[in-house]
């Protein structure tokens, strides 16, 4: 076996777990790989350094891998996603003030995203009539599930995310601070940031991401498509290391150790407690210690989550079309689907069990008709935003 060195970029988030464990617990070394992990501060950096070859591979937002392959929003570099590092893991958190306003406006239980979306529409309308400033929400990147999830939720209540509120990109490390300074009224971000907002008493978790979309394609391991061809053997070994690490992460006996490892300053760098609760899917949702659990809150390579599903890539592309980031064409759809590479996954790790709990369309959005990859226009028409209450 040839020794190989890899430089891999990551953002300090809990869904980098399989990657970090693969390196720190020696799964990569067993495959003859020396992996140099580089902690990054922005998705733009991760994408650029991957694109120009400073990185061999990277922990990347799944929609950003698709956008890069399509040449949408930036330079076109065909990327391959042979391993899903994570599904889900996001949440929508709002300020205590907005939470109270939503509660007062809600026609039913606020935990139901249909109810909360309608409540949001009422709050938005009331603020406009009162001449108050529009609400501001943060999300992490234009090409992110955070962006698409919060938009899906708002639109379901008749709120136009581009007209009725301000939806801004906010780097995750600034989210909690911005909420406490009232620069934003809420945000959609990944773990651990929602928990940190709750911990500091400045926010309440309104919805888990999986309440909005049951199986959202969140992060991929991305490599350049050309690199996947040229370094096939190295990639295969790297995927084996990730598979082994993912199994380790998902063994309940290792939760404590994994949380401790991720808590290290050079890794995710937040308290092991929060990480452990996140991995178990039990989060404090309000400052008084109220918690909510959902075993699907974050899916790190379990229940069939690690195998890339081209339907997920098609769904991400459909979101780009819906929100005017990309035109609709069969060529772009094909390019999006080609970015997700179950063939590479299968070659390295063999056929895995199909998910037991996945919804029939593979996505499970809380509103709208089931997703249909080959009728995106029809699917989007079925999601038409109801006439907003102006």
């Amino acid at each position, binding site marked *: 076996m040839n020794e190989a060195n890899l430089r891999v970029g990551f953002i300090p988030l809990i869904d980098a777990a399989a990657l970090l464990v693969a390196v720190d617990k020696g799964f990569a070394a067993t495959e003859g790989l020396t992996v140099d992990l580089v902690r990054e*501060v*922005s*998705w*733009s*950096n991760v994408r*650029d*350094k991957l*694109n*120009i070859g*400073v990185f061999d591979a990277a922990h990347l937002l799944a929609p950003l891998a698709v956008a890069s392959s399509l040449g949408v*929003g*930036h*330079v076109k570099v065909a990327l391959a996603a042979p391993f899903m590092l994570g599904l889900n893991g996001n949440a929508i958190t709002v300020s205590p003030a907005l939470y109270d306003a939503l509660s007062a406006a809600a026609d039913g239980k606020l935990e139901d995203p249909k109810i909360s979306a309608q409540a949001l529409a009422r709050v938005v309308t009331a603020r406009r009539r009162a001449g108050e400033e529009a609400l501001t929400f943060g999300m*992490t*990147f*234009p090409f992110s599930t955070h962006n698409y999830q919060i938009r899906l939720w708002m639109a379901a209540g008749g709120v136009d995310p*581009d007209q009725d509120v301000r939806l*801004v*990109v*906010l*780097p*995750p*490390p*600034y989210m909690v601070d*911005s909420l406490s*300074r009232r*620069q934003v009224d809420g945000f959609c971000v990944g773990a651990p940031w929602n928990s940190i907002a709750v911990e500091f008493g400045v926010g309440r978790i309104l919805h888990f991401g999986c309440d909005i979309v049951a199986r959202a394609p969140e992060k991929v391991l991305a490599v350049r498509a050309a690199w996947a061809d040229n370094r096939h053997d190295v990639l295969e070994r790297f995927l084996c290391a990730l598979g082994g690490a993912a199994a380790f992460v998902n063994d309940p006996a290792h939760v404590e150790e994994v949380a401790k490892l991720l808590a290290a300053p050079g890794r995710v760098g937040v308290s092991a407690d929060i990480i452990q609760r996140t991995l178990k899917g039990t989060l404090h949702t309000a400052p008084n210690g109220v918690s909510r659990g959902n075993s699907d809150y974050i899916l790190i390579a379990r229940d069939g989550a690690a195998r890339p599903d081209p339907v997920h890539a098609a769904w991400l592309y459909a979101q780009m079309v819906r929100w*005017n*980031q990309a035109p609709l064409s069969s060529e772009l759809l094909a390019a999006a689907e080609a970015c997700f590479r179950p063939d590479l996954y299968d070659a390295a790790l063999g056929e895995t069990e199909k998910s037991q709990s996945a919804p029939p369309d593979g996505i499970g959005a809380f509103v709208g008709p089931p997703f249909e990859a080959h009728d995106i226009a029809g699917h989007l028409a079925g999601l038409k935003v109801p006439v907003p209450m102006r």
Partner: protein
Amino acid sequence: MDPALKIVIVDENPIRAAILADGLREAGYVHVTRIEETASLLVRIYSLDPDVILIDLENPSRDVLAQMFQVSRAVKRPIAMFVDQSDAAAIEAAVDAGVSAYIVDGLKKERIKNILDLCILRFNAFARLTGELERAQTALSERKLIDRAKGILMKMKNIGEADAYAMLRKTAMNENRKIAEVAQSLVTAAELLK
């Protein structure tokens, strides 16, 4: 060279930003503004309406700039320097130096080539400066440590400074360690025996 270009620098490091701004002004660019506050970055950028935005790669706000590429916003759209991959060497030099640049769509690349070159030079100069400063600080603290160790030896063994230093040096050579390391052990031991 186009002195009328409006340039915005987004850098949390005030010294590096100053070095960069000075360089640009020396080169003749008169409209150079630095943004420190990241909270309302886009609002500031929109109001300044720059032709060129320079941002360091260690700044998480790079992702905020990504929002400006969204079609829904009716402002002058900047594009990333990296969009043009024809000049791979320049891109790599920029990434190495830790700087990224965004230019308003339609601006000819040649017009800002020297701005980016100047940035890379200045960023590298700053990195060298920081490195030298660190080395100087380390050297200074090592010097102090060795002086203290010499003082201890001179007092305890009743010897002169040159002999004390010779002892430290000989021990370091025998043990294959740095003189500063031997001095550190000696100082620690002396503290314990106080």
